[in-house]
Structure formats: structure tokens, C-alpha cells
């Protein structure tokens, strides 16, 4: 086992719950549960072969998506890399448009032209994503520049992985953001792997957050399995930025329970220890938060079951919608090469 959980779970949070209000706490749970269930349904149906698209599941990484996005308003913009599902749903992206995209339908969020690594929904501020590692970082930074020049008073957030920090453009983006004191949060989901390559074969032993700090951005590490930690950290960053702090870099340590891409886990191929995954599954962001809420009488078991039923229906409807949506036509291919 190379990478172990080093957080404290929800220890200490019991005393601080009034800070949020019960509805909000339950809502965070609902959002995580919804993402988990959507991802499991996608995974379950993947072998039906109707979704002719790569998938990069966020099962295990729901707390980062939900915690970080919940700190944003609609007018704040979110950018992401290839692992889009959590970002898109966390920011409030339309599930039907998402599933249509994944079914290559013409009413997909980008008309089946972008695929699952390019889920965007400008209506809710899910602004853009790139399938190129690090590719969205300067683009998000440019959005922050535009916000600053146009005095739009919003915050930009961009998701990246541990691998994303290895691209030179990440350093360039941090430098420019720090130079101009741009309103941007670099939110790094450090899940210790890039595809099947462990962090230790790609970076020296030092915390990513320390590397980021050298760029003169505000930087902090957070337990990425703990939605309250993530939310609080992101919210503080957002407020700080509104007060002119300039950019933040947040490193959230987290684990993906499935393969890099596709359905199922591939730990058995040997690139990581199955025990490592199992140990992290004990910190499952959905279940650990659920238990915490139940322990504190904020969530009841029946309530969770009701939620599940509701979400199941939503998901089924959305799949039906996607499956029955129209195919793109040949003439669509030649659209939008140049902009009018």
C-alpha cells in the first residue's frame, strides 16, 4: 500500500454544525448521493454499448465535486479536465443533456461533438473542459483575467488532477494568476494516480501544495473525502478572493474507487494494491458523511431511502430521454468550424 488516508474523518465537526443549518448539510449529502448513483448507473449500463464514449468515473471523488462546487454561485464559473462528470453535476449541469451527450445524440450538451470529456453547460456556469491534461488551466486563468478586466466580480474555479500539476502550463498559469492577483481557485484532486502511474514515479516526495505555494498563490491542503472540510476550504477561498486575496490553490487528497477510465476497478492488474483501494473505501465520501449525519440525527435512514428512490426515477427518466433523442445528421459535421 503506497498511499494511505491521513485525515481525521469528521472528528471535531460535531460541534460546528450550527454554522451551516440542517437543510444545507442534507443537501450536500443529496448531491453526493445523486452523483454516486448516476455514476453507478452509467457504469452498470456501460456494457450495453449505447454510450459510445470514454468514461472517467468519479466514484470515490464525490466530496470534492460537491464540496467545492457548493461554494460557488451560478455566476461563478467552473472549468475541468477529462474527469468531468463530478464537476458538471456538482455545478448543476443538466443530467439529460449530459446523458444525451454520452449517447452521442444531437441534443447532448454539445451536440455529441465533445463527448464525455467535454461536458459543459454555460447556463449554470459549467464553462469548459479539456481532454488534454492541463489544457483547461490557462483557459480558466484567461476567464479569470476577463472577469478582472470586465469587473465581473465572480470567481473562477478549475479542477485538475495530481498529474495536471506536472504540465509546465500549470506553473505558467499559477504564475500569471499570482502576478495579476486573479480571482481563481485551482482545485487539485490528488488521487495519487495518473491512469495507472503512481505519483511516486512522476513527482518527488513533497506535498503538491508546497509546490503550488512557491508560485506565491495562497495554498492549502484538505481531506478530499470530507465534504464539510472541502466546502469550508473552498468557501473561505471564495471569500478571500472577493476580498482581493488573489488566487488559491487547494489540494484535496482523495481516491478513485474505479479504473482510470471505463467501468469497474482494474486494481487486480497490479498497478495498485487492492488493499489500498479497500482501505480508502472505508473513507467512502458518501457513506462516511451519511453515517456522520445519522450519528448527529441530521439524516434518518428512511430519508436516505426516499432520496434514493427519487434519484432513481430521475436517472431512469434521463436515460430514457437520452436513448430516445435524435441522432446528429451528416450536415451537422460541417457546422461551427468557423464562428460567424
Amino acid at each position, binding site marked *: 500500500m503506497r498511499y494511505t488516508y491521513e485525515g481525521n474523518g469528521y472528528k471535531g465537526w460535531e460541534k460546528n454544525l450550527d454554522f451551516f443549518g440542517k437543510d444545507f448539510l442534507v443537501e450536500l449529502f443529496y448531491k453526493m448521493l445523486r452523483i454516486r448513483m448516476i455514476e453507478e448507473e452509467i457504469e452498470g449500463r456501460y456494457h450495453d454499448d449505447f454510450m459510445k464514449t470514454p468514461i472517467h468515473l468519479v466514484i470515490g471523488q464525490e466530496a470534492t465535486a460537491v464540496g467545492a462546487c457548493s461554494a460557488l454561485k451560478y455566476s461563478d464559473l467552473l472549468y475541468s479536465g477529462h474527469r468531468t462528470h463530478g464537476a458538471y453535476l456538482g455545478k448543476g449541469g443538466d443530467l439529460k443533456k449530459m446523458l444525451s451527450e454520452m449517447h452521442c445524440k444531437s441534443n447532448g450538451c454539445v451536440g455529441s461533438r465533445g463527448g464525455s470529456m467535454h461536458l459543459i453547460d454555460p447556463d449554470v456556469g459549467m464553462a469548459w473542459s479539456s481532454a488534454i491534461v492541463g489544457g483547461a488551466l*490557462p483557459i480558466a486563468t484567461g476567464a479569470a483575467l476577463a472577469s478582472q*478586466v470586465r469587473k465581473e466580480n465572480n470567481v473562477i474555479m478549475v479542477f485538475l488532477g495530481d498529474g495536471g500539476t506536472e504540465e509546465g*502550463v500549470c506553473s505558467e*498559469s499559477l504564475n500569471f494568476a499570482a502576478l495579476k492577483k486573479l480571482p481563481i481557485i485551482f482545485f487539485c484532486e490528488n488521487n495519487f494516480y495518473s491512469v495507472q502511474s503512481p505519483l511516486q514515479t512522476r513527482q518527488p516526495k513533497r506535498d503538491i501544495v508546497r509546490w503550488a505555494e512557491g508560485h506565491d498563490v495562497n495554498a492549502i491542503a484538505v481531506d478530499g473525502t470530507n465534504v464539510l472540510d472541502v466546502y469550508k476550504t473552498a468557501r473561505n477561498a471564495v471569500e478571500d478572493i472577493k476580498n482581493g486575496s488573489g488566487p488559491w490553490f487547494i489540494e484535496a487528497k482523495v481516491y478513485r474507487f474505479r479504473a482510470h477510465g471505463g467501468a469497474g476497478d482494474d486494481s487486480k492488474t497490479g498497478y495498485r494494491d487492492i488493499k489500498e483501494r479497500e482501505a480508502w473505501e472505508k473513507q467512502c465520501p458518501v457513506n462516511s458523511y451519511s453515517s456522520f449525519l445519522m450519528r448527529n440525527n441530521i439524516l434518518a435512514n428512511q430519508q436516505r431511502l426516499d432520496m434514493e428512490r427519487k434519484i432513481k426515477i430521475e436517472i431512469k427518466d434521463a436515460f430514457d430521454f437520452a436513448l430516445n433523442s435524435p441522432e446528429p445528421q451528416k450536415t451537422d459535421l460541417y457546422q461551427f468550424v468557423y*464562428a460567424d
Partner: protein
Amino acid sequence: MPWDEGLVNSLVYDEPDPDQGRVLSYPHALNESLDLALSGDPSVMILGQGVDDPSAMFGTTKGLRERHGNARVFDTPLSEEGMMGICTGAAMRGMRPVYMHNRPDFILLAFNQLITHASKCHFMDNGLNKVPLVVWAAIGRGWGSGAQHSQAIQGLLIGVPGLKIVMPSTPYDAKGLMLEAIYDNSPTLIFEHRWLMKKSGFVPEKKYTVPIGKGIVRREGKDVTIVGASHAIELAFQASKKLFEIGIDVEVIDLRTIQPLDDEIIGNSLKKTGRLLVVDTGWAIGGVCAEIGFRAAEKWFSDLKSPVRRIGLPDVPTPAGYGLEQFFYPTADNIAETVREMCVKK
């Protein structure tokens, strides 16, 4: 560099006719277009290494920061890939950045953002976002530029869907095409040639545009068509004068933009002359020359009376030394000689 300034200053350009109207230098024409764009639209911004320094990017950006402020006219870190992405991201959010480079060589650092991002966003986004971005660079030559500071990369980019590529040859076009590029909603590259910076010409004061995708016949002729853009037009002109003396009447087509390419103007000319020579400031192989020659042999095959020919850079990197450089670049004499050959061999 003294010797080099001398060399470039000694280039013989036709004296512009002041009766035509106001005469401006090439950098001044660009400066005026940037100034007009900044004044007319608060979303325009000009950035690049040293755009606000005393050298002012060959003089093209002189005074712009003073007049329009540091928020929209600014120097950048030495981060070409990052800044290309930053421009793209800002453009998607409604800005109209003009990102300027001393040399096209530096754009090679940013090919991932340019080719895999900027050029494709509008398509991938199903039209949701636009990227009204202008990327500007001046092709280096002389000054001991050498292999790493002289590359003319238009040939590498001509095949990339979604990009527009502009290569002006006169101060008039430099101004009008810059404004058109800034107003255009697709990512557009403008490749200037460093030697054109010494040129002067008629430039109207008002805001005007030159359309992207349309060429212009610079000289009418009936025997051979020379197609090119930018500094190549200068060479073609000089050659056409020499050729006229020996009875060969050359038509010179200035493409102005090489993507989209004005097929019609080339086709019409070939119908008349039946002979094509393509001249480019970039590598001859696989670039602008090859593309235009191919189209001729595909679309106007039956009009062709002799093999298509091309003159670009030879298949070697640029030597830094002045001595070797003289053997490297095409000259008006090369062009004239090639055209003569084309007319002899029927």
C-alpha cells in the same frame, strides 16, 4: 544590429505615390489599426512580451498602453503556451485579445493551446463559445536569426481546421486585415515579415477592413501566374520586371490570406496563363506551395500547360551566418529564372 539595419534599409521598395493619399510606414499602419480597435471596443486587448516597452514590437504598439491603460495593453511573462491559453479563455469570455510575438518560432511552444484548443473550441462546443483571438508574429530573417529565430510556420498550420491565416504585403493591407482579424470571431493568425516593416505606403486614416479569404491581382499578365503572399510578393514583383524585359508577362496574385484560400482568383488566372509558380517564405515541402500546387493540379488540370513549380525555403534549417544565409533564401533572380524555364519547356 547595425549591419542588419543597413541591409533591411537598403531594400528597394517602390516609393509610394503621395498623390494617392496619406503615406504611412508598415508598423505605423499596424499601430493605427490597433489604436482604432482599442478605441472602438472595450473588449480588445493587446498583449505580448514587450508590447509596452520602448521598442514596442517593431513600433507597432507604440503609445498604446499610455492611451488605453495597462489593463488592456500589457507585457506578459515568458510563458507562450500559458498565455495562448489565457488569451483563448479570455476570448471565450468576451474579450478580443491580440497576442503578439516577435517571432513565429515562439508560437511553436503554444501549439497545444492553438491547435488542440483555440482552433477547436467553437466546433467542440457546438457553437456555444467563440474564440475571437488574433495571434500576431513577425517572421525573422537576417540579424543572424538562424535556425531558431527564422521559422515561417504558416505551412504547418494551413491544414488545421478552424484557423484563419493572414499574410499581408502592404501597409494598407496590414491595417485593414488586422482590423478584420480583430472583428472576426475565429482564431486568426497574422504572419508579418520583418523586412516589410521597412515599407511605406498609402494608408487611409479611417477605419476600413480588408476581407479575409480574398486575394488580389497585383499585376496582370498572360504568360505565367505567380501566387504568393507577404514578402514573397515583393520578390515576385522584382522578378516580373526582369521578366517583362525578356518578353514574359507575369501575373502576380497576392493571396493576402492563405486560409481560407481564394481558389477563384487562382483558377481565373490559370485559365488565362496555364502556368503556375507558387512562392512562399516558408519551407517548400508540405506547406503553402504544396497546397496551392495541388489544388491547381486537381481543379484546373486541363488548363495547365506546364508542370506546377514552387519556390520556398530548401529542406534545411536556416543557417545563422550571413554567408550561408545568402545561399538559403529565394531571390528575385531565382524566381525569374524558374519562370523562364517554365516558358521555355512547353
